[in-house]
């Protein structure tokens, strides 16, 4: 398509203004508002007991949910790409469910299964395992939400790499396990890395599902996003900005990691 230069220029300007209004201004303002009262105030706000607890809870949930989801995602991608079975199309649809369902609904549905008034939740509670309104439930909610991220990154890479290298490894004597570690995993490593970064970002930022199952016990089941919500609700606007700033910082680091991984992923 040939576009006259004035049109191209105004098109670019439009796209940039659009992005500026929609994305850059709000995120930039968060940082501005965060640091407006000075560094001391920021430090005080992120070192309150509930802020520290929220930060570490977020990290803990992420450190449990993301590795488990990564193992599961790679396994699922292998099954989808390397095996033929009935119900494959159905499985493919189920994987995308977390994309389609609102996180709040996910939280509520978990509540329906694991609440102590329900059979499963009651059975677990009898054995001293409390899922709802405690960390296990929040990990479950986070894992539910991030299910598609690793599978959807790894499956196309597996498809592109094909299975000839694995066949060659088999004829050279490698067992399935050896072939996975020495051939398959190295060929999909950048896809896995990208999936890990995406799911980490999603896990840290998750609000809706976690909010429902957490019970929002300050200092116990409050993550960073929930802290933002709570502070904003209590008219502690600067406190909310500071916590948001912290989240936005984590997001920027994630973005940087993605930028570093992406070119390798495409050239792998």
């Amino acid at each position, binding site marked *: 398509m040939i576009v006259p230069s004035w049109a191209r220029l105004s098109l670019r300007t439009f796209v940039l203004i659009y992005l500026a209004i929609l994305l850059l201004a709000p995120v930039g303002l968060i940082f501005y508002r965060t640091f407006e009262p000075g560094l001391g105030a920021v430090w005080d706000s992120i070192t309150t007991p509930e802020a520290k607890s929220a930060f570490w809870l977020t990290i803990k949930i992420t450190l449990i949910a993301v590795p488990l989801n990564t193992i599961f995602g790679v396994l699922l991608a292998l099954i989808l790409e390397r095996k033929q079975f009935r119900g494959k199309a159905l499985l493919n649809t189920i994987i995308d469910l977390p994309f389609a369902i609102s996180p709040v609904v996910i939280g509520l549905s978990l509540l329906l299964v694991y609440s102590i008034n329900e059979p499963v939740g009651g059975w677990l509670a009898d054995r001293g395992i409390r899922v709802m309104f405690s960390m296990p439930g929040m990990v479950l909610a986070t894992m539910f939400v991030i299910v598609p991220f690793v599978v959807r990154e790894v499956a196309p890479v597996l498809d592109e790499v094909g299975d*000839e*290298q694995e*066949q060659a490894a088999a*004829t*050279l004597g490698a067992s399935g396990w050896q072939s996975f570690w020495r051939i398959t995993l190295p060929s999909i490593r950048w896809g896995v890395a990208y999936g890990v970064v995406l799911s980490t970002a999603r896990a840290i930022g998750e609000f809706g599902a976690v909010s429902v199952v957490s019970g929002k016990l300050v200092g116990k089941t409050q993550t960073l996003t929930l802290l933002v919500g709570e502070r904003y609700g209590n008219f502690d606007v600067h406190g909310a900005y500071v916590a948001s700033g912290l989240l936005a910082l984590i997001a920027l680091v994630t973005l940087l990691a993605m930028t570093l991984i992406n070119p390798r992923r495409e050239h792998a």
Partner: protein
Amino acid sequence: MIRVSGLTKQFGDFQALAEIDLEIPEGSLTALLGPSGSGKSTLLRIIAGLETPDGGRVEIDGADATGVPPQRRGIGFVFQHYAAFKHMTVYDNVAFGLKIRKTPKADTQRRVDELLGIVGLAGYSARYPSQLSGGQRQRMALARALAVEPRVLLLDEPFGALDATVREELRQWLRRLHDEVGVTTVLVTHDQQEAMDVADRLVVLNGGRIEQIGTPREIYERPATPFTMGFLGPTADLGGEVVRPHDITLSREPVSGGHEAMVRRVHYLGFEVRVELELAEGGSVFVQITRRELAELELHDGDVIWARSETLRAPEPRPPAGAEQVS
């Protein structure tokens, strides 16, 4: 030695292999030759254990290998698209099978260096497959397959992805390598010229069945079926008799068994000449003659001549040792 008996394989409605019986003698270089869909690759992959047959048996060196996984068959396999381990150097590619077998490092080093020398990649051990040409990648794949000292070497269209010059060069090279190493080798190809050039034994397949087994010369000169006749080279129909265009002689005088024909056109194709004839009894036929023959005959378009088939037959083949033909 590889022995295959009663091998069948079906993909959905498609019969890939129908009751294949075949013996591949120790130390031979056998080509499985056939058009696409003839079952040649499926047969090779079943021998390798990469595909499971629906019925029948595979024996390698006298031992039943039918249910044995590819890891324990003692085979080397070379793929059409190289299947190079892209994230490993040339050295690590070739050393892969030895590392899996926990070969001592010094032995691995010695073996890999020796093999890289044999395949002409001595200075390339630190390179990655993406830094090699197609021909070099395939030679690396061959070294990798040979590193584990397989009892049989199986090659699936190994030169199919290479351009014509490299293909011909690698073909000669493979032949010399086979003469040096002497490992029983089975090569799958759809290219009859490649098969005749490189192999000492051909197995012609069509529609999941074996059409004929023999040396290149036997098969070219004594094709057992019309399919083999047509697949191995051009044919001409001389009054109901199917012959090779170069097995027809022309003369200006009537000869016994000759067919009267009119020269429609003479085509000069460099070293050979093709004469298009219109037979008096109907139909047309191409005849291939040399420039010398043409000069002696002084042929011109519209001349009337006599064409007779003079097929050069190979000597009757000795009864093949154990390898009966299945049609």
